């Protein structure tokens, strides 16, 4: 038997979500272990620059109902509305709590927390722009991580940095009893036994070829959950940013287009005029992303492989570029080898956020059709953060709602775990064979022989995902993609490690990460094909149920957990029936709460999207306001890269 450590609770992941949950538990004097494959303050949360959304009304009139409305609508009506209510309501105390913990928010002149506007934020249920996202300069995620980390140290959370979680240990009755992990430094496995385990392992955008996410975002928690025999939810929903540098993925913010930058295809044509004749290059994120994807598919992309388009800003002139876009210029020179003063910046849609994940409820409990009910809690297992699907983001996450999700549900999960631990005071017998299974997976890599390489297979998988399951999707394309993915996966057993040493074996970790990525990749809408040739979205802002028909999947795809009012009639809706028209009442919230809301007339299809292209699945759904305000954020007169 491998070395064993015993705790009340084990938290896997030291990003905002894991840290917030751990804090709740440690403050209740429980014995908590937090495992993180990288040093916690180097978690991906550090990238979040934009801020955290809460209707504090410090800058503009606001209240949480409006935030809720925007979030429900932003989710394309596919979010869980009770959970969204919970999140938006608790946003205020959550942000004040962070303030009291010492998070250094930027301040307004009157001393209150600074807030900035983001797309999709409205006053009065779809009215004018609200200003709702609280920020600590352009490093809110960084500030959040450091604040929570310090608090955890004070509360005596036990940190296991550079420990890589391999697999959950789940007994016959379905209880999760801990996790098998690998100590990266020594390469030795060990067992963390606990009565409650929380997954906070972050997103999986590294499944795509172009992604804005750090390399650590390989969806490890998702792979662990699937291997434990549990399903995932909403895995077709990925948010793409329209303009990232190809391969590297680094974001070129919309601020550049705000300053007057425009997109051209390989013929030098300003193609946005064909897709969005009015908004042009300032159309919403999803419209721009799809337009670029269309150009690329039509063979009008630039470069050797025709897989990107050009973003031109030369016309702004060297002085203005240097003065206002120095950061963008630097990134372009560093990663695209192009100085935008003389050359166009190559850009392509890049995966940014994973809306789907481990099905969980607003207490952070992982829920699945485990025994008899459709949504039973898996005893002892919790999930929060980007790896979880509560689902508050539905088909699309609004800027600043992710950090909020981390702290609100991190706290709620911690709280629920405290109760669960109280009700389940005794350890259960650990099923040794489960531990052995995890160890066998590890051993298989130690003995690996073959001609394939992990890096080679990863690149192939990422490319298939990008080309077949990216922004532009048709049923045929998805089917083909799946077949190709199956072939890649079939070659995985022939992959050998370049390095067989034990200590800090990055090659081995990358192999394990690849297993986690390939494990969950099939969750794509190929399993839920929409009516072909029909417009998928009669008009936006509708429950686009077309994509939500359950169709056989090679692993269980979770379908439950929707507001019943919207669930009902999903099948008919798929055929175009049952869709409320403009001006009609749409039951948006729980009947006993906020009642119904008129489908507002301003929700118009983004231009260029009326044509029933039959295959576009909403990637980023910023179409809510047909031209969401994207103010260029400036710092000393310069447009800065503030991403949400």
């Amino acid at each position, binding site marked *: 038997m491998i070395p064993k450590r015993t705790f009340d609770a084990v938290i896997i992941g030291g990003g905002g979500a894991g840290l917030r949950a751990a804090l709740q538990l440690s403050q209740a004097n429980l014995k908590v272990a937090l495992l993180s494959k990288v040093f916690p303050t*180097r978690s991906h949360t*550090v990238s979040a620059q934009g801020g955290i959304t809460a209707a504090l009304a410090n800058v503009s009139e606001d209240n949480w109902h409006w935030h809720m409305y925007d979030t429900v609508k932003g989710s394309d009506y596919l979010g869980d509305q009770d959970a969204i209510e919970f999140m938006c309501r608790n946003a205020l105390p959550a942000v004040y709590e962070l303030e009291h913990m010492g998070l250094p928010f930027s301040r307004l002149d009157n001393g209150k927390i600074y807030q900035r506007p983001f797309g999709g934020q409205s006053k009065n249920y779809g009215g004018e722009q609200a200003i709702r996202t609280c920020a600590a300069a352009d490093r809110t995620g*960084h500030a959040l991580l450091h604040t929570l980390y310090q608090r955890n140290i004070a509360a005596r959370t036990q940190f296991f940095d550079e420990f890589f979680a391999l697999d959950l240990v789940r007994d016959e009755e379905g209880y999760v009893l801990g996790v098998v992990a690998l100590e990266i430094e020594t390469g030795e496995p060990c067992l963390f036994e606990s009565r409650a385990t929380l997954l906070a392992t972050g997103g999986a955008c590294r499944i795509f070829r172009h992604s*804005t996410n*750090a*390399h650590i975002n390989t969806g490890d928690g998702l792979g662990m959950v699937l291997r434990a025999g549990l399903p995932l939810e909403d895995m077709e929903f990925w948010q793409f940013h329209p303009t990232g540098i190809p391969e*590297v993925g680094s974001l070129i913010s919309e601020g550049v287009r705000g300053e007057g930058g425009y997109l051209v295809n390989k013929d030098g044509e300003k193609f946005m005029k064909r897709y969005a004749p009015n908004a042009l290059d300032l159309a919403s994120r999803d419209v721009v992303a799809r337009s670029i994807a269309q150009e690329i598919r039509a063979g009008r992309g630039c470069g050797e492989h025709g897989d990107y388009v050009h973003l031109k800003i030369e016309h702004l002139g060297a002085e203005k570029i240097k003065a206002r876009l*120095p950061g963008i210029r630097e990134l372009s020179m560093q*990663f695209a080898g192009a100085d935008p003063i003389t050359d166009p910046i190559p850009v392509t849609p890049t995966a940014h956020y994973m809306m789907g994940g481990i099905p969980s409820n607003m207490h952070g409990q992982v829920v699945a059709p485990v025994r008899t009910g459709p949504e039973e809690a898996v005893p002892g297992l919790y999930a929060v953060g980007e790896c979880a699907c509560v689902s508050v983001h539905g088909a699309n996450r609004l800027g600043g709602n992710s950090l909020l999700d981390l702290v609100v549900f991190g706290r709620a999960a911690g709280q629920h775990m405290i109760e669960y631990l109280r009700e389940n005071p005794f350890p259960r017998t650990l099923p040794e064979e489960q531990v052995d299974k995890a160890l066998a997976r590890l051993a298989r890599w130690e003995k690996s022989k073959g001609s394939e390489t992990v890096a080679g297979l990863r690149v192939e998988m990422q490319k298939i995902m990008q080309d077949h399951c990216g922004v532009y999707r048709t049923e045929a394309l998805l089917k083909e993609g799946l077949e190709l993915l199956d072939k890649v996966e079939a070659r995985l057993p022939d992959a050998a490690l370049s390095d067989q040493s034990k200590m*800090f074996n990055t090659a081995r970790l990358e192999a394990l990460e690849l297993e986690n990525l390939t494990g969950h990749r099939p969750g794509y809408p190929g399993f839920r094909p929409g009516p072909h040739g029909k417009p998928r979205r009669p008009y936006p802002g509708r429950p686009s149920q077309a994509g939500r028909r359950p169709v056989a999947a090679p692993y269980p795809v979770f379908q439950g957990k929707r507001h019943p009012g919207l669930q009902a009639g999903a099948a008919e809706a798929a055929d175009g029936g049952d869709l409320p028209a403009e001006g009609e009442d749409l039951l948006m919230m729980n009947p006993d709460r906020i009642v119904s809301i008129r489908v507002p007339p301003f929700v118009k299809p983004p231009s260029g999207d009326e044509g029933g292209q039959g295959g576009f699945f909403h990637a980023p759904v910023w179409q809510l306001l047909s031209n969401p305000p994207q103010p260029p954020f400036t710092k000393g007169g310069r447009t800065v890269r503030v991403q949400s």
Partner: protein
Amino acid sequence: MDGQPNPSRLRWLCRRGMLELDAWLARFLDVRYSQLPADQQTAFARLLDQDDMALFDWFTGEQEPPAEFRVVVDEIRTTRYPR
């Protein structure tokens, strides 16, 4: 840390919370690191202990790095994969 930094350890420490840092550091480790003199290699190992945001500001040129890191930061900024 005694003596020369363990190269495998460095590889893992180059995994950061921000994509651009991953790209900068991996490129440097792949292409340039092994050619540097020992003192710069140790400077690099110490650099990896710094905060992500600090690294980002230094690599983008937004802020001047402390003297001990100036050379290595400059190397990171100028290293490119061979064409």
